[in-house]
């Protein structure tokens, strides 16, 4: 019979000196080295350093998977929101979403950043917060932000997870941007979904 049953090998001797592995030319070796680093705070600078010049997806995934388990990584991850690399920016958003307690203190500053693109990504991060907190933060943003795309990003999240307090804020938003495309539509849909009313 060609179907055979074997015991598994002993745990693989993947042990490599981590630092040597990190700089290897072989991506598999780099990935293994990252995966063996663990999730202590002292791994954060090593992991952030490993991002420099790294382009192999499997290695990047290992780095961000590790970073998202370490609350101390919140601040360095937040700095990646400014990256020119779309992949790094969006990986940073996902990693920050995994650490609501660690990212919480950073959010007010990020949501007020001068760069609208950073504010948009930061709005995405608020998805991970309890609804009450998220609504407070995003309603505050919607009262004052002048960038329609930042506001649109906030409306998306409120349409899914918003509560009644957001409704008057959304009405004012629709009025403020009534001459722009998309935003009044989005605000109306969000109000409908939050209140559950309408057809």
């Amino acid at each position, binding site marked *: 019979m060609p179907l055979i049953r074997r015991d598994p090998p002993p745990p693989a001797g993947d042990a490599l000196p981590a630092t040597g592995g990190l700089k290897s030319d072989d991506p598999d070796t780099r990935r293994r080295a990252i995966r063996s680093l663990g999730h202590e705070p002292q791994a954060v600078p090593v992991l952030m350093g490993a991002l420099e010049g790294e382009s192999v997806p499997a290695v990047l995934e290992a780095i961000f998977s590790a970073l998202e388990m370490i609350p101390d990584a919140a601040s360095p991850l937040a700095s990646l929101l400014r990256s020119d690399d779309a992949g790094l920016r969006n990986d940073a958003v996902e990693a920050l979403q995994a650490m609501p307690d660690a990212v919480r203190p950073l959010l007010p500053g990020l949501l007020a950043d001068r760069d609208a693109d950073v504010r948009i*990504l930061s709005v995405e991060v608020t998805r991970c917060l309890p609804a009450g907190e998220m609504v407070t933060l995003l309603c505050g943003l919607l009262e004052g932000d002048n960038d329609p795309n930042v506001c649109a990003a906030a409306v998306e999240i409120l*349409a899914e997870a918003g509560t009644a307090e957001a409704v008057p804020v959304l009405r004012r938003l629709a009025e403020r941007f009534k001459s722009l495309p998309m935003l009044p539509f989005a605000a109306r849909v969000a109000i409908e979904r939050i209140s559950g009313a309408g057809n």
Partner: protein
Amino acid sequence: MPDPSMPPRVLVVDDGSLIRLYYRQTLEAAGFQVLEAINGIEALEKVLSERFDLVIVDINMPKMDGMSFLRALRSQEGHAGALPALVISSESGEQDAAAARTAGANFYLVKPVTPESLALHVAVLTGVPA
């Protein structure tokens, strides 16, 4: 207007459900058939499974961003690899549009787009006669 018996098929790729709804309503009213995906991976799955005439793609999306999607798309053979791609992104920098074109975008629009502009660009990129 597109031929109603064979409407051009447009794949809208954006992680925002309201923006996808906005594009869907606009394009369906203009006679196009619209399907959706939430990120580059789902978009690739759809592009490899069904025939489309245009893909509209955002840049910032989870799991696989728009740039990675464009590169993966252009590495495909046949119809998928040649699929016209319209990027509609909130990023307004010159370098953002240039980078998207290098990655394989045919055209780049900055959000927010009006319904008229969206319908016009889609008509042009799907070869619908004026």
